């Protein structure tokens, strides 16, 4: 960034924040190179007369590399990420890692639970845990709301819309499938 920083801004945090800016283009570059290398291993059937299954992947790989280089150069010139806005987002706050970890744990619990325990139970756990992590108190309230939503969704999707969802131990209970 070429313009003057706000006076009270110390230089250190600015420098500390530069390296993550390069992390994303570095990842893009790696993906682009991988795409180019891996595209060469795609089998091309003999029947292919003109353009086979490799050409488009090569183009995509090249685009990724190009974009990575352009973004990287931009960062070097001083371009900085503009964090996305949102109604509920405090863009000036630092990342709240404990909350993110709790939300991620709740999501992993869902992945583990959904088939053995069924959608209604797994979704209740997910909803309750996420709402609680984001500050809903006492714990019982988000769990009850979650149970209500999970059961409603399950019945709506399996019975009315005909979409399959695992019922888990509720298998055989009328309305749950």
């Amino acid at each position: 960034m070429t313009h003057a920083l706000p006076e009270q801004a110390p230089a250190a945090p600015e420098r500390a924040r530069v390296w993550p800016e390069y992390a994303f283009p570095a990842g893009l570059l790696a993906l682009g190179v991988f795409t180019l290398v891996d595209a060469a291993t795609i089998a091309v059937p003999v029947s292919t007369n003109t353009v086979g299954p490799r050409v488009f992947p090569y183009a995509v790989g090249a685009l990724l590399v190009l974009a990575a280089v352009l973004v990287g150069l931009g960062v070097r010139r001083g371009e900085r990420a503009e964090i996305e806005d949102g109604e509920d987002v405090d863009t000036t706050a630092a990342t709240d890692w404990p909350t993110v970890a709790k939300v991620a744990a709740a999501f992993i619990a869902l992945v583990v639970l959904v088939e053995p325990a069924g959608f209604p139970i797994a979704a209740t756990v997910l909803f309750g845990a996420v709402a609680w992590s984001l500050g809903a108190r006492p714990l019982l309230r988000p769990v009850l709301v979650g149970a209500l939503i999970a059961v409603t969704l399950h019945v709506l999707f399996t019975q009315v819309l005909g979409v399959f969802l695992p019922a888990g131990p509720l298998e055989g209970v009328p309305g749950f499938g």
Partner: protein
Amino acid sequence: MGDIGLLMDGFANALQPIYLVYALIGVTLGTAVGVLPGIGPAMTVALLLPLTLTLEPTAAFIMFAGIYYGGMYGGSTTSILLNTPGESASIVTALEGNRMAKAGRGAAALATAAVGSFVAGTIATMLLTLVAPTVARLAVQLSPADFVALMVVAFLTVAAMLGTSPSRGLASLGLGLFLGLVGTDSLTAQQRFTFGIPALADGIEVVVVAVGVFAVGETLFVAARLRRGPVPVIPVSGSWMTREDFRRSWPAWLRGTAIGFPVGTIPAGGADVSTFLSYSAERKLSKRKSEFGKGAIEGVAGPEAANNAAAAGVLVPLLTLGIPTSATAAVILAAFNSYGIRPGPLLFENEPELIWALIASLYIGNVMLLVLNLPLVGLWVRLLQIPRPYLYAGILTFAALGSYAVGASTTDLVLLGLLGLLGWAMRVFGYPIAPAVIGLILGPIAEEQFRRAMQISQGDPTALVTSPFAAITYSVLIGLFALSWWLRRRQSRLAAEVLGDDDVVPATEALPAGEVVDREGSGEPQPTGVLPVALLDPPAGTTPDDERGDRR
């Protein structure tokens, strides 16, 4: 003219009770997600993609179109009553609308937004009715090489226009194109980028990618920096539109429509650009320039009309060429694909019943939306107050449901989580999401057209540019870039000007003291690289105008 007859048939079809029910569900859901922060129409349609497995196409598209139109209406309520616009299309509405609400004229602002949306939506739908069949008839003659040209245009403009920097847009597009490559090549049945995982052989489901980057990414993003405390909603007060309000609004509605529809049809970033253009036109033409920035009703009426007209405009290239120019349009295209229906010039010939019922439902949906948004606005205000922990827990639950339902596999849930991390990173590092979604969905179609074109030319790549249409298209592309560069400069200059004025007005007085953090700054993306974490609460005036000027 046969089209009128077909439209009448479409109405006869769309007015069947079952389709009216789907239209009502669509517009209600659409308004709800438009009002609610954190979710938008693109994500909602993506979440409902599993329904394409069981629902018949006409019902599904009537509902999806309702969601799309409804989202445009709902967004205005949020930006008028909650001064933290999330969707860039409603930032401009927030400028004047929010001032009006704080000055006790919230009801008038909501009314001019809703009626303006209705007027613009209806006129633009009429334009769509007139223009689309003609475009389709002309487009029948296009060759695969011509389609490749059109898709190149769509890719590049979308990458360049959506988001803050063209290089980051290009990066996002590349990510989407890569995700679209994963799976089995449709022409030669070769596996590509499947990493030997059998579940990837069928490709990554669009639902999983769209929901992952939108819903899960957004939830993680919000979880990491949630604005704590109660939601400051400004109560709706004042009378509905007075005669004077109406007199000032209607020319703005018409001008907004005239700006919005054409901007929507070209891939120029869709609704955002049209709202900024409309706002600047209103400001320039107004005899009361001093009122702008303090609650000028034209500043709500024009952009809201432009916003809705642009939504109808986006449907023209989607339906007639199969080219989406917004994220929602891309997801609707994915829905067409899952029915095996190919939007494009032949759509009007092959699926006349579906398409005309869909167009008729747009008129019907607009009437429903007017009713939903004027007398029932109180309901939506209530929705705005949903405590955020519950809102985001609900979004994540829906995301998991939609992704699991599409393939009944936990692998999709794992992918959903990983793509959610990607979506979060993209938000934090300022990469726009929409180009990725468009690349994912349009990429495979573009590849197919490209290979067909090359087969026809027997491997001669010059055929891609030598057809007259393709040659003209590439020339126009160059022209378009010059134009969009100009529009962008205007937009950022306006944003600087407009938000600059904004900073002068103390806006926080109507809100509970001590709770508000950086309300003004949230109207404009902050250069976070230079905002030290310690600088938690900059007073309204500390963001200098020049900071905005040189950033783009």
